[in-house]
């Protein structure tokens, strides 16, 4: 018999921390990571010596990233490992930390995501499988093709898709950890420069450097260390899936998200209506529309109209990408999925300041990665 996360002993996020996402600088990955971890420890009000296991989500730093960074908090001898899962590296590190606590193997675990832009060897390029377009199709063109299909099928304009960037940059302008902290108008988004198809520069996420950390704990650790229960946010679902063979011409990104989210709803015992905040993989504007539909937040083809109506705004039906999302907060790869957990935790605690979505109780984090993988977590504040 198998069990889901919610059947195991409860696991809670008790500490969050970030290093601002920013353009590549001379700051070492060690400084980035330590900043985020120290902030998370301070947020949880616990010393490093209480952390019993650490997972580092990273795709670009290189082999053996964890200990050369974390030893500067005190070399306590705890298990450490790197987790690489493309854009979902941080989300997967967080999942491993949650599973380790929920299973009872440890009481207090750290997930930290850290990365700096760097050339990286991509395994899919080593399969010896070629396609007709080769290096000429990069992610922004993959999503430009989906945008074109979306516009054709749903009679949606390029401006309607671009509205996602207006909303997310408005949110990012109020996030001190965001790489882009400037509100933009629809005209500014549309003015370009054009990148691929309907996508302009501001409709593509910035990939910079940064770090994010989340500390998860059991009830035992919360009681033993006197951690503030009112600020602990429970993780009620952790689901990850990979792409299957779908019917031709279908959109595999949306199919994979739909399947993964449906399983997460089942395991958490909730439905799309129950979600107050969502952080999703909006690396490109079109993705937010496709995923909102795949998540059941609106009917198929209604994503653009949902954005226009304000239903996805902070204060709307469900705040989507309240952090600014990948589009404004940024997508430094390893940190991104952990940064989503930080934002949702902040929102559910009611500590998000000017970005606060009123009465937020249930939130969902969603990342996809090349390969293709999808990782979803649902958090609840009781």
């Amino acid at each position, binding site marked *: 018999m198998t069990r889901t996360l919610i059947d195991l002993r409860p696991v809670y996020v008790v500490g969050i921390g970030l290093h601002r996402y920013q353009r590549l600088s001379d700051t070492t990955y060690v400084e980035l990571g330590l900043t985020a971890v120290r902030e998370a420890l301070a947020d949880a009000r616990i010393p490093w010596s209480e952390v019993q296991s650490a997972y580092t989500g990273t795709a670009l730093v290189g082999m053996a990233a964890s200990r050369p960074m974390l030893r500067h908090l005190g070399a306590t001898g705890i298990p450490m490992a790197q987790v690489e899962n493309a854009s979902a590296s941080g989300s997967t590190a967080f999942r491993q930390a949650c599973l380790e606590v929920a299973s009872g193997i440890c009481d207090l675990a750290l997930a930290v995501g850290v990365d700096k832009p760097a050339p990286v060897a991509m395994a899919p390029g080593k*399969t010896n*499988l*070629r*396609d*007709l*377009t*080769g*290096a*000429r*199709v*990069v992610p922004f*063109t993959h999503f*430009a*093709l*989906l*945008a*074109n*299909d979306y516009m*054709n099928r749903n009679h949606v304009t390029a401006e309607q898709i671009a509205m996602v960037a207006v909303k997310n940059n408005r949110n990012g302008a109020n996030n001190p950890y965001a790489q882009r902290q400037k509100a933009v108008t629809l005209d500014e988004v549309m003015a370009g*420069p*054009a*990148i*691929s*198809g*309907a996508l302009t520069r501001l409709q593509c996420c910035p990939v910079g450097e940064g770090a994010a950390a989340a500390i998860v704990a059991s009830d035992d650790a919360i009681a033993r260390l006197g951690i503030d229960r009112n600020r602990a946010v429970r993780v009620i679902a952790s689901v990850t899936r990979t792409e299957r*063979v779908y019917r*031709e*011409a279908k959109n595999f990104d949306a199919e994979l998200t739909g399947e993964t989210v449906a399983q997460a709803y089942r395991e958490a015992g909730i439905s799309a209506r129950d979600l107050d905040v969502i952080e999703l993989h909006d690396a490109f504007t079109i993705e937010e529309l496709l995923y909102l539909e795949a998540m059941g937040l609106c009917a198929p083809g209604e994503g653009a109209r949902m954005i226009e109506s304000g239903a996805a705004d902070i204060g709307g039906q469900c705040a989507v990408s309240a952090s600014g999302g990948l589009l404004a907060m940024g997508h430094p790869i390893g940190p991104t999925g952990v940064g989503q957990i930080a934002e949702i935790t902040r929102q559910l605690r009611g500590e998000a300041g000017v970005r606060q979505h009123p009465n937020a109780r249930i939130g969902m984090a969603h990342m996809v990665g090349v390969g293709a993988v999808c990782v979803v977590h649902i958090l609840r504040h009781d």
Partner: protein
Amino acid sequence: MPERAAAQPSLYSAESADPPALNGGRCRACGYVFFPPQSYGCESCGAPPQHLEPVTLAGRGTLHSFATVHLHQAKGIEAPFTVGVILLDDGPAIRSILTSRTDEGLRAGDRMISTMVPQGRDDQGREVVELRFQKAASDQG
């Protein structure tokens, strides 16, 4: 007859009849037809390589979606160029560079056919040709 070389010989033959066909694969166990060809195992049913066979896919299909790439940083790739997703009549959906640099006059649902486009010469002096897709003339589709 001047010798020609395919830019990607695993995907099509330089001497293929007009319109040039693509090299695909088919699983004898489940019937799944795929592109590009591979002999690792069937993605659909898991059948091992001995169940996979080469299959020729006609260079004809329907345009599903397209995008003109305005900016490209890789060396030797000159923007703009246009990429299309084509649903081949023989099954798989593929992505191909289109012969037109921009998307002018293209619509989803257009009938498309393959064609060979010269790409210069290789170090043996042979003309290198690349398979691309273009909108079919009304009597070609």
